[in-house]
């Protein structure tokens, strides 16, 4: 049984106060951001930290940042010893970041007390920028080193005691393809932190430093209790599962992920021993990404209203061999670790947990984000363009109901770009956007169907696709059939050319790209008429 919190009422009140700060930061960022990744796809996170850098609240926007931000705060504080008015910036995947397009800003919160200023907390936000330079537009290239993926920003001060570091600002903007848009996004991020700092200051002023800190502490304990309770209901034991990613786009695949989960006395020990060594292509997931995917799985099992704070993740222990796909050494390329490998980590963990608590775990969902980038020169509008989209697919069948169709699952939840908005902005025309019928796996309950999307080019463009589950299939559970793998096709005249899962190539006006996304796996043995 759980330990009683000292003040169950005050804590509940503070839970609301803290999460509304994180949420308000998110409103500012979303509404004023320029990158489609931020404004349409909510590929950002905002969080509030205590003075020791422990996350006190994170707004729910995208799971792939779950629990990955404390590391950024820790690294920035360690390296920079932030002072009042400073804003730190970082995207280095090997120093607190995830992949280069995710730029994180960290601001310390100093509170005046008895004439002195005391460091009482931090706020941070992380946002996926549409381009941070590197060898291809969109900065999600098929690369073999992180240096090719874009500009690397180690923890640095963007603001020093309230004054912007203009030189740094210029360096960043000089290294990206769409500097105005980047400037707009960074300003939105700065504004979001400014709001967060002000609100957290108000909170300390109103409730006092000691009480506020005690409440933050209490909420960490609370979330930890909820997580321990959750884990204790899953069924103690040792569970192992393996699955694969098709390939890394450079070398032939497949790439194996293996996880062994030990559940014991309310704690989870997750060991990725047996996972392939780091690869040459960008599938490598830095440790914060691996942690985020792991935390996501347990967080989802804990119910939706537990605060996502550091306490929530305390009973989860991850071991990831250094030099492996899930904890690479620099300078391995990492762009796709976030978007593809993170999905497979979830698949592997759910596969293992399905042995512990079959009634709570769905079959595999599409297991990819189907990242597609088209970039080039838009002659009609007289400007360069870079379109980036991720496409939903089939959700795995649930024990008691089918998987949803045409939906984003697990580590992402990004909105699609409206077709009318896309055609207004880019030299592209969508020819079909529909459900990919019969792509979900059969089962007692069926997997959801994927999506079929055809895009016609109205200008020459470079196409990049980062997708997976093109040869491997989303698994079914307990006799359910796997979902259909996805397909990438180029339609040129009457030709139909099958494209690999990960590809970069130049296309011509009139070419049509068709993406068919995977279906979800089925659950339970299908009856005869379902087959």
């Amino acid at each position, binding site marked *: 049984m759980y330990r009683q919190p000292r003040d169950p009422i005050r804590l509940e009140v503070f839970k609301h106060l803290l999460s509304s700060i994180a949420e308000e930061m998110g409103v500012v960022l979303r509404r004023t951001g320029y990158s489609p990744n931020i*404004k349409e796809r909510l590929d950002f996170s905002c969080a509030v930290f205590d003075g020791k850098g422990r996350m006190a609240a994170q707004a729910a926007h995208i799971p792939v940042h779950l629990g990955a931000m404390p590391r950024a705060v820790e690294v920035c504080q360690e390296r920079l010893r932030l002072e009042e008015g400073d804003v730190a910036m970082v995207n280095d995947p090997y120093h607190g970041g995830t992949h280069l397009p995710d730029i994180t800003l960290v601001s310390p919160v100093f509170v005046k007390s008895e004439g002195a200023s005391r460091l009482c907390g931090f706020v941070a936000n992380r946002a996926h920028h549409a381009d941070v330079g590197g060898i291809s537009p969109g900065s999600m290239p098929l690369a073999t080193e992180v240096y090719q993926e874009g500009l690397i920003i180690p923890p640095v001060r963007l603001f020093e005691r309230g004054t912007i570091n203009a030189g740094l600002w210029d360096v960043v903007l000089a290294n990206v393809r769409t500097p105005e848009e980047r400037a707009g996004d960074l300003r939105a991020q700065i504004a979001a932190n400014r709001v967060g700092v002000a609100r957290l200051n108000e909170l300390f002023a109103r409730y006092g430093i000691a009480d506020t800190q005690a409440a933050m502490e209490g909420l960490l304990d609370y979330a930890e209790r909820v997580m321990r309770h959750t884990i204790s209901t899953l069924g103690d034991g040792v569970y192992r599962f393996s699955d694969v990613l098709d390939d890394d786009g450079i070398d032939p695949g497949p790439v194996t992920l293996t996880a062994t989960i030990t559940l014991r006395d309310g704690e989870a020990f997750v060991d990725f021993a047996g996972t392939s060594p780091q690869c040459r292509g960008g599938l490598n997931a830095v440790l914060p990404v691996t942690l985020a995917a792991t935390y996501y799985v347990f967080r989802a099992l804990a119910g939706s209203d*537990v605060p996502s704070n550091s306490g929530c993740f305390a009973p989860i222990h991850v071991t990831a061999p250094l030099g492996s796909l899930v904890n690479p050494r620099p300078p391995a390329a990492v762009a796709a670790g976030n978007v593809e490998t993170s999905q497979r980590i979830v698949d592997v963990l759910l596969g293992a947990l399905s042995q512990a608590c079959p009634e709570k775990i769905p079959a595999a969902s599409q297991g990819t984000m189907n990242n597609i980038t088209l970039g080039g020169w838009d002659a009609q509008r007289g400007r360069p363009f870079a379109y980036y989209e991720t496409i939903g697919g089939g959700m795995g069948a*649930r024990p008691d109901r089918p998987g949803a169709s045409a939906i984003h699952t697990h580590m992402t939840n990004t909105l699609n770009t409206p077709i009318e*908005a896309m055609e207004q902005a880019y030299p592209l025309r969508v020819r079909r956007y529909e459900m990919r019928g019969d792509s979900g796996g059969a089962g007692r309950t069926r997997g959801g169907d994927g999506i079929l999307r055809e895009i016609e080019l109205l200008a020459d463009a470079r196409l990049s696709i980062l997708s997976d589950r093109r040869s491997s299939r989303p698994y079914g559970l307990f006799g359910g059939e796997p979902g259909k793998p996805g397909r990438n096709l180029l339609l040129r005249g009457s030709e139909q050319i099958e494209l690999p899962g990960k590809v970069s190539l130049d296309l011509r006006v009139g070419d049509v790209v068709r993406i068919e996304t995977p279906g979800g796996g089925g659950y339970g043995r299908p009856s005869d008429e379902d087959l």
Partner: protein
Amino acid sequence: MLRVGVDIGGTFTDFAVYDEAAAALTTFKLLTTAADPAEAVLAGLGRIAGRASIVHGSTIATNAVLERKGAKTALVTTRGFRDVLSIARQNREDLYDFLSDRPEPLIPPSLCHEVTERVDAYGRVIVSLSEEDLVTIAEQLPRQGIESVAVCLLHSYMLPEHERRVGEKLRALGIFISLSTEILPEFREYERMSTTALNAYVSPLMDRYLSRLEEGLGPTELRVMQSNGGSLSAKQAGREGVRAILSGPAGGVVGAWHLAKQAGCRQAITFDMGGTSTDVSLLDGGIQVTSEAAIAGLPFRIPTIGIHTIGAGGGSIAGVDVGGLLRVGPQSAGADPGPVCYGRGGQLPTVTDANLCLGRLIADHSLAGEITLDPMSARHALERLAQQAGLRPDHDLDLAQAAALGIVRVVNAHMMRALRVVSIEKGHDPRDYVLISFGGSGGLHACELARAVGIQRVLVPPFASTLSAFGMLTADVVKDYVQTVLLPGEVSAADLERRIQPMRVMAQRALGKEGFAEERIVLEAALDVRYLGQSYELTIPFGEGFRDEFHKLHSRHYGHSEPEAQVEVVNLRVRARGLVQPPALATVEEDDADPAEALLERSQVVSSEGQVREVDCWRGEVLRSGNRVAGPGLVLYPDTTIFLPEECRAVVDRHENLVIDV
């Protein structure tokens, strides 16, 4: 001539009757007849002698969607896009729930038809409309038993001709047709399609219901409340039912705005706390309208009063979660079984039980005398909760009271968050606002809430429980028009004016048809503007300096603006208001300050700080204009109670509002 506002609620159907000749307002309530709401409406109107003009807040459209009982509806869309409604925006509602599902689309895939045609983003025809396809669809629809059709083609807001041709062809079938360009010529296909589908789904029901009312009523003017706070004619409502879909809470906000103006206040936040939910809305020199509304997860981009609703109310149930925190809601005991103190089988303590235990509700003087409250059963339930939560008796408070105070604090935290969303998060400082409290439970929380967010004044109107029906009497006739243009921000005001002019003419003509003389028509033009590259627009009044206005508003909402950056004009909007003369309520001469006549027996109440205090109580209906009362205390009305914490000072103003300085 009599003017009548009718508001159908879950339990009661409220009537507000204003006799123009006598300048007299009366209100009454009948039990709602859920199976056929028209029954109670007709019964109530039957009590009213003489010719009446009626404004009706109808839940027909809302319930049709919530209960999925709308017309059998088909969709006609561009070839290649039949699944847009099912795919929606491809996101899921809950990030961390494997079992959560998206709402099913109103129109199942089997009833979505494709027609060969294509228009591009500039309104050029790429593929001409296939007449053959239309013939096929026209044959299929009757076989499918279709009652209503939504037509939404890609980029039709740039070129409506194809939709119109589809409409022409299908109208020949004698079924209801809704064209997206008629209801919402605005870009973003999913939202436009969803709006059109909702309209096609609810309008036939609305039309049938209103026809039945009109038959029952004989010759009278029947108007329907819209979600935007205005009314529209019954005829239009039968074609554009989606405009009424969130009209439920609109009457209350409109009524509150009227009372606020009357009390000389231009900035207010409405706070309508009911049994299962609480609605808050910000008034800043007028009612705030948004076009980002949704019902049951289905979006519609029809102008709608910006109301933020949370699932916490008097009936919200309190409990202890697995981590040991005291939680309130979102589960609600509703009206049945209701709170424990109703004695109808409810076992779990609610906010109402907590207020009763704290002495803020008085057992023998509550809830319109309909229900006898049982304090002992509430106390037992609260004690059980306190034990679960590990609470201990605290100073003055016994276990049940400690739990009760906790419940009130937690539910206040929920509502504070709602107040912050509509004010602070949109750049408004609550200290500049007055809180207008209505709804059955509002008065018990309003003062504490106001203090918590820095609001200095609370206003409780005299007919708080029928404010919505009253509000309908004050609602103007409103028509909203929108057109997507997507023009670069350098566009001249003159050019914009040229594009807006036809919309104005259309609006003016439409109100003229409803009998409004020119001097009673107000036309307001507005622009949806964003920085080029953003995805969200802000709506600003149209004028020469619209760019500056935009930068200013952006800065206010989000804390920064980019005066150097390029802007984009996304949509043109025209709102036409046919001005309605609001009821001229008599003002009352101020009496002296002494409320002695209203004084009741003193009573024990637990204060905000957790002390048991003996406090004054007053009978609300007996308080007269000019009377002053001070907290701690209770003001008891037949249908609601106001809790005045320590140091609150209240006065009854000339309009019989209780005005509380907190």
